[in-house]
């Protein structure tokens, strides 16, 4: 069994209550940090651990914290981004539902490290049960003296609030989240200034994912050096993966980074293989925003070595043959799934969720969605495929926030790797409505010559 840090006690009955959580060693990190460490030492410990942001971008958390501006007399804020709404990702919801105190403990330690006196957990509006769970847990922690004035007699004050969002995907972008938290329309801000300089109410702010904050707890408990022993290279620690799609055992798994993708999909400890005895056709390795990969490139790198679940290994090969770790939303497609339909589905999502602020994303996402709808429903033309590539290139990199990139990558990568299937949809409009393209050559070992670097 691999080591578990976040979900170690997940199956203990009543772990969502403060009492049981404390019996299992909960809130040790708060006591250790507040009583024996200075805020800078906590930041140093997190830096040492090499923890990388678990929300998608993978930016080192300790580094992010050390960038926080600390002007005199200005409040600082820590905001937890629990606006998890990427198709395929549901790890934060799981964590908040079953061990809410892990997040709250992490929030206290992180707020202490950053010197924040007020912290917010911005939860997606649809997650009403989780909001209630967190509020109950906060009340418990407050009653036990872990929140409020003079925590554990150390003189440190912290108020923690849960803020429900309106349920917009865009509010998971950190500056849009801050706008929304301020009570405005959730439009991403133009950067710079970055939130570390001017964030919530113009004050220095750190925005972290739920899992990143929860991961601070084991780092403080065991030390940053201990944390780096798990994982591989610059991908340290454990990561929650939300596995979904045609798997025997979909669900949330905590893996040690560096686990081979093949083992993750096929071993009984994790997903247990592809459901109904089918074969794997493709995967989306990190939530809907990352490039889709055919089965052969999922399991093996272009040079034939096994691909690992780590930030580096998944992005090995760039966009030509690689993908990204993203937020850990692992979606598997079996041989009967239609990539065109799936791409259309993702594209529809981004069209619906674009905030409409900057033009390439506002207009381009709708355009791609309409063209994909046409191809999927048997009215496509051969020229549409190149049109899609062209539109995706016009969106990518030309927008205020990464939603434009996130909308463009799945389309561009689907066409890069599954062009045959798109062409088949155009060539066989009637047949494509009744049957599917099948697995074709997507699971065959990659011939060296096939590795092209066209972009």
């Amino acid at each position, binding site marked *: 069994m691999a080591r578990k840090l976040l979900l170690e006690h997940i199956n203990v009955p009543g772990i969502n209550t403060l009492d049981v959580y404390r019996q299992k060693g909960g809130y040790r990190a708060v006591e250790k940090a507040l009583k024996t460490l200075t805020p800078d030492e906590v930041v140093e410990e997190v830096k040492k651990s090499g923890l990388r942001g678990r929300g998608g971008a993978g930016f080192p958390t300790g580094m992010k914290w050390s960038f926080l501006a600390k002007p005199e007399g200005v409040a600082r804020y820590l905001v937890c981004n629990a606006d998890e709404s990427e198709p395929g990702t549901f790890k934060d919801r799981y964590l908040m539902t079953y061990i809410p105190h892990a997040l709250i403990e992490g929030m206290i330690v992180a707020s202490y490290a950053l010197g924040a006196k007020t912290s917010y957990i911005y939860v997606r509006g649809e997650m009403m049960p989780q909001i209630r769970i967190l509020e109950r847990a906060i009340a418990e922690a407050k009653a036990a003296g872990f929140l409020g004035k003079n925590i554990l007699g150390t003189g440190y004050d912290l108020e923690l609030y849960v803020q429900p969002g309106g349920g*917009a995907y*865009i509010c998971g972008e950190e500056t849009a989240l801050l706008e929304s938290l301020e009570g405005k*329309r959730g439009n991403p801000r*133009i950067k710079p200034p970055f939130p570390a300089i001017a964030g919530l109410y113009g004050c220095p702010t750190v925005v972290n994912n739920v899992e990143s904050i929860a991961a601070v707890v084991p780092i403080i408990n065991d030390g940053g050096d201990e944390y780096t022993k798990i994982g591989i290279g610059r991908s340290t620690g454990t990561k929650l993966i939300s596995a979904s799609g045609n798997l025997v055992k979909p669900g949330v798994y905590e893996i040690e980074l560096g686990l081979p993708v093949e083992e993750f999909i096929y071993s009984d400890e994790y997903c247990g293989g592809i459901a109904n005895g089918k074969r794997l056709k493709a995967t989306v390795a990190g939530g809907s925003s990352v490039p889709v990969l055919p089965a052969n490139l999922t399991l093996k790198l272009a040079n034939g070595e096994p691909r690992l679940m780590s930030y580096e290994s998944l992005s090995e090969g760039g966009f030509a043959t690689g993908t990204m770790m993203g937020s850990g939303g692992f979606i598997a497609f079996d041989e009967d799934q239609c990539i065109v339909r799936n791409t259309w589905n993702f594209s529809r999502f981004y*069209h*619906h*969720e*674009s*905030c*409409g*602020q*900057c*033009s*390439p994303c*506002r*207009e*381009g*996402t*709708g*355009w791609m969605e*309409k063209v994909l709808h046409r191809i999927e429903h048997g009215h496509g033309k051969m020229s549409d495929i190149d*049109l899609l590539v062209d*539109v995706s*290139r*016009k*969106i990518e*990199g*030309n*927008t*205020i926030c990464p939603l434009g990139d996130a909308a463009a990558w799945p389309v561009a990568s689907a066409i890069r790797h599954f062009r045959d299937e798109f062409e088949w949809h155009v060539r066989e409009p009637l047949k494509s409505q009744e049957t599917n393209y099948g697995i074709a050559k997507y699971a065959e070992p990659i011939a060296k010559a096939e590795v092209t670097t066209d972009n």
Partner: protein
Amino acid sequence: MSEKVKVTIDGITVEVEPGTTILNAARQIGGDIVPPAMCYYSKLEGSGGKCRTCIVKVSKGSEKDPRPMPKLVASCRTTVMDGMEVQNITSPEVMEARAGVVEILLINHPLDCPVCDQAGECDLQNLGYEHGLQKTRYEFERRTFERIDIGDKIQLHMNRCILCYRCVFTADQITNKRVHGILNRGDHSEISTYIQTAVDNDFSGNVIDVCPVGALTDKTFRFKNRVWFTKPVDAHRDCPTCSGKVTLWYKGADVLRVTARKDIYGEVEEFICNTCRFEKKKTDDWVLEHPTHISDASVISSNHYETMIPLPVIQENLRLQEANKVELEKTAKF
């Protein structure tokens, strides 16, 4: 002030105050290298960054950190650094990306220029003329909205809107209370006064001037005339609420509409009040100054004063003759 910083745009170096944006630095140089701006408006705080037409390539970040910026940046919101090198029209990558933005701006734009009052002074029309394709690749139904009257003087035609947010900033910053904003999101976003409340305050008419397209039009001028058949004349009056400096648009002896004066980037010099804009439409209300200078590139200049034939209204009206003395003398010389 601290020391000036040097920035090179398309090979032309200029010294500007620190904190200046690339776009404003380019405007100090002037000419063809100025990136087009559809949403940035120098008089409105916080505007810009949205339309992406002003994107440029930063090929050298600064003297200290010479790395180029990884993506194209919006020049209206990126401040210059000392030693920065920027490529605008010299970069094929920028031109291609800009053409892409223009195409994207046009896919849901109705292209009803033949019946649009903005035609002839429309930023999007100019931009499409310079960068657009001859034929659209968009083969779907465009999004449509009902026309809405915002008060009795302004009409909102949301189909034409490119969501630059300029009018929202205008309403927010130069009028007393915020009266309208954006509803919905994505390509269904619309400018709206919630539940169709009338926009009612002294400066609301300025949203017409800041609109880069024909989404907000003056109902007192709608369908009266094409702008290139009208003759702009700068004029002023003593106005208790605003500066009273305006441009009158004549057709024959009639003032068809009144707008604020605009500079070469299509930005108003001073915002004017609704009384000046909508109520004062007689020559007697104004002291005429001189014909407005119209850029040669504009379609409005095609039958402008440079023909040296004074307007009939000037020939007949003694006060106007007095006001245009200099111009008339010039004409007489020729």
